[in-house]
């Protein structure tokens, strides 16, 4: 029996990547003593209730924005539709914690909105009521404003793939356009919308920056507080495990919906779509609805960041900022390369040895995308710390040498956490590239006398190039935006743009944070551009 290196290496990778998950789950059985008792009696209920309320709020708002805009741009005709089709993706570029503090700066007492209001009315402090952004409702709005594009993307694709015939059958049976939408179009798109919604809710659960800044007690903030405030690792891990339960439900929902979506997909897309032309008020409100979504989700906050950055960049962009950028780039480049190499290895294992073990290992290795950064960080710190301590005491006993902390608080720990969290992104990008190289292309090359190594060089590398660059870019940007895992795992005195922006904002230096934040948003535009390009490509192919 031949040793199967592909099976062994892919299962090995999957196992290593699953360590954080195992650790978190295993900690359920470690007694956390009085701390847990204390948590359960005081704050646990708040964490559950707040997290649930936040999810409900985000769901309602993001569904309204996502499904509404998706239907308008895919099924109707109104001024600006072509621009909105891609522009509605722009809010994805802004991390939730950045839009959160931008709105805080705009809407608080000293901000431009209230100042203008007072100037116009002559009111003073305490004369009027103004909604508080830094609240649970505020957090829900902030998260929904930047997360709705997930729903928009999937719902739009679902509406476009609906067979025109099905809709025409409904029209021919006497249903008007609105009735047709609610009785046929929407139900057919429901699985896709549910898949989008579960992604939105996963991001909501994973969010730390927004809820922390707004002072809303949820699981992620609870994990941080238990970790740093109470210094109790098992209790933090147990909170993380409960959070994981929520995630498991969402992942199941997402998987199930995607399967359903395949059944609901009536196959061939329509060749020519007759969009519903809107008139009068309908026309105006369609444009206004899309414009408002874009305005509040991207244009206003990005513009405000720009204004602040212009005010403060002279003080902020200095030697320290350069170090910051350098550190961030270093991390992001290393993490994206690491993820790319791992993704290539796993994808080739699946291509060359598509047995059950390998297929399962590849799927397991991609699970991290669903796990909140906080949970991964906790699952990394505990085993790495244990390893360092064990090695240190063993070396001291045997050789009287102290090895100190080898892994904890190093870049290695941080890179490992990024790999766990973002591997799915590069796995997917490489997979979609590799799918284009059909097995018969390999065979055709071999029949023409090429050895496997030469096939890699003459066919695979040139054909994969684009996908590899995409894989690198996407992970690069994700690392740039990542906040909670970086906060927990970064080496002492090591800052990234995201951490710096967060720290400055936490110190109420909102304007000073703008340069770092704007840099993140601009980088975040890269995946949006890639996405909108693939949108217009699929439109070309439909023609």
């Amino acid at each position, binding site marked *: 029996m031949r040793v199967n290196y592909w099976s062994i290496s892919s299962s090995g990778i999957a196992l290593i990547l699953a360590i954080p998950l195992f650790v978190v789950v295993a900690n359920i059985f470690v007694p956390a003593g009085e701390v847990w008792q204390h948590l359960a009696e005081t704050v646990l209920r708040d964490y559950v209730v707040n997290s649930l309320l936040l999810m409900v709020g985000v769901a309602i708002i993001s569904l309204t924005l996502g499904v509404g805009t998706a239907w308008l741009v895919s099924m109707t005709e109104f001024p600006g539709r072509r621009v909105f089709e891609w522009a509605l993706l722009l809010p994805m570029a802004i991390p939730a914690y950045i839009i959160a503090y931008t709105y805080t700066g705009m809407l608080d007492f000293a901000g431009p909105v209230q100042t203008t209001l007072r100037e116009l009315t002559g009111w003073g402090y305490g004369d009027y009521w103004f909604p508080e952004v830094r609240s649970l409702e505020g957090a829900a709005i902030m998260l929904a404003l930047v997360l709705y594009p997930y729903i928009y993307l999937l719902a739009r694709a679902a509406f476009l793939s609906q067979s025109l015939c099905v809709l025409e059958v409904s029209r021919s049976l006497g249903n008007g356009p609105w009735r047709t939408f609610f009785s046929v179009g929407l139900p057919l798109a429901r699985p896709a919308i549910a898949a989008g919604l579960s992604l939105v809710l996963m991001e909501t659960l994973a969010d730390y920056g927004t809820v922390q800044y707004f002072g809303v007690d949820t699981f992620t903030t609870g994990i941080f507080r238990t970790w740093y405030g109470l210094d109790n690792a098992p209790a933090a891990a147990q909170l993380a495990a409960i959070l994981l339960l929520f995630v498991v439900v969402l992942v199941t929902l997402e998987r199930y919906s995607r399967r359903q979506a395949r059944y609901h997909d009536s196959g061939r897309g329509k060749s020519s779509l007759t969009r519903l032309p809107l008139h009068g008020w309908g026309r105006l409100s369609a444009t206004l609805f899309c414009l408002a979504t874009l305005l509040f989700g991207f244009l206003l906050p990005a513009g405000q960041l720009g204004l602040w950055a212009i005010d403060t960049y002279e003080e902020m962009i200095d030697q320290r900022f350069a170090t910051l950028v350098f550190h961030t780039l270093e991390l992001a480049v290393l993490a994206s390369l690491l993820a790319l190499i791992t993704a290539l290895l796993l994808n080739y294992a699946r291509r060359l040895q598509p047995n059950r073990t390998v297929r399962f290992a590849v799927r397991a290795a991609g699970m991290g995308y669903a796990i909140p950064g906080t949970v991964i960080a906790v699952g990394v710190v505990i085993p790495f710390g244990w390893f360092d301590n064990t090695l240190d005491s063993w070396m001291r006993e045997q050789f009287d040498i102290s090895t100190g902390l080898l892994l904890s608080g190093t870049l290695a720990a941080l890179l490992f956490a990024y790999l766990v969290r973002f591997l799915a992104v590069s796995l997917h990008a490489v997979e979609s590239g590799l799918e284009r190289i059909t097995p*018969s*292309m390999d*065979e055709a*090359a071999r*029949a*023409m*006398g*090429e050895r496997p190594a030469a096939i890699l060089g003459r*066919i695979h590398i040139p*054909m994969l190039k684009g996908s590899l660059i995409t894989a690198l870019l996407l992970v690069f940007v994700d690392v740039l935006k990542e906040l909670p895992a970086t906060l927990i795992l970064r080496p002492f005195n090591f800052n990234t743009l995201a951490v710096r922006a967060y720290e400055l904002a936490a110190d109420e230096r909102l304007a000073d944070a703008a340069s770092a934040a704007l840099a993140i948003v601009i980088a975040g535009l890269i995946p949006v551009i890639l996405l909108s390009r693939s949108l217009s490509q699929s439109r070309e192919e439909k023609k």
Partner: protein
Amino acid sequence: MKTELELKDVAVAYDGNTVIKEVSLSLQPGEIGCLLGPSGCGKTSLLRAIAGFEPVSHGEIHLNEQLVSQPGNSVPTEQRRVGMVFQDFALFPHLSVAKNVAFGLKKMDAGQRDARVNELLQLVGLAHLKEAHPHQLSGGQQQRIALIRAMAPRPDILLMDEPFSSLDTELREQLAREVRELLKRDGITAILVTHDQLEAFAMADVIGVVGEGRLHQWDSGYNIYHKPQSRFVADFIGQGVMLPGKVSEALAIDTELGTIEGKLPLGCKPGCEIELLLRPDDVLHDDESELKLEVKERAFRGAEYLYTLALPSGQPILCLVQSHHHHRIGERIGIRLDVEDIALFPAR
């Protein structure tokens, strides 16, 4: 004369499950062979074994009189000098048409390579598409490029896996004729796999009917149609009915349609219960004939009608008639038999 391809008692297995076995066949240089069978019959596995993509679990494969496959020992595809045309054409999307065709011409210098590419492109009339990329070509053009790409390095044998199945029906026949002409002109030995018998008849000199994991017959198109050696071949190829009968003392066959004389296959003894394969073209329409049968069904096929007639016992027979002979269902029409080749099978 030398043999270009020879299979001796070959079997192919996946994960211990034998998909095809006991295959022996040979092709002379310049001959075009065809493996014909329903989908899932193992014909593609056989082709892939000849190409070297699958190992054989039993037997031997010889290419150009050299042993290339036996159990536990297989010359890699890249050293076999085979050309292969795939069902999906497998053109490299990142390379231009010219570069696709030149892909296998590593050992030539640039001048020779260019000359060979131009020659082949002209052969299929696509010289103007030299710099185009595969996605800009139509299905038929892609097929021709895939063909000349496989021909370019002058392989010992050209293997074609359902080469026309992704094309429109009209285009298929035209291309099959073109490709045959091309292969014959260059004297290329080839073997193709298909499930379409018309394609097989149009392309091949020798046809192998594959079914139920075996090669049933390796023969000319005429013989597999008129002299099938197994029930499977008789059923799979063309149309026809099985007419029950009995071998008489005079070594003729007594059937409900009368006595049929002719050369009987070996092994038929008087008194044997048999079934006779009756093709629609064995039954001629003749208004003068005494033998009149009732029309049960008719199918218009353009140049002819295919009538289904019923014998007194209810046994149906098929009859092909020029299409200006109109007869209504229920009418009785005269027929006579013209059975040139007698194909007999033991009664079931």
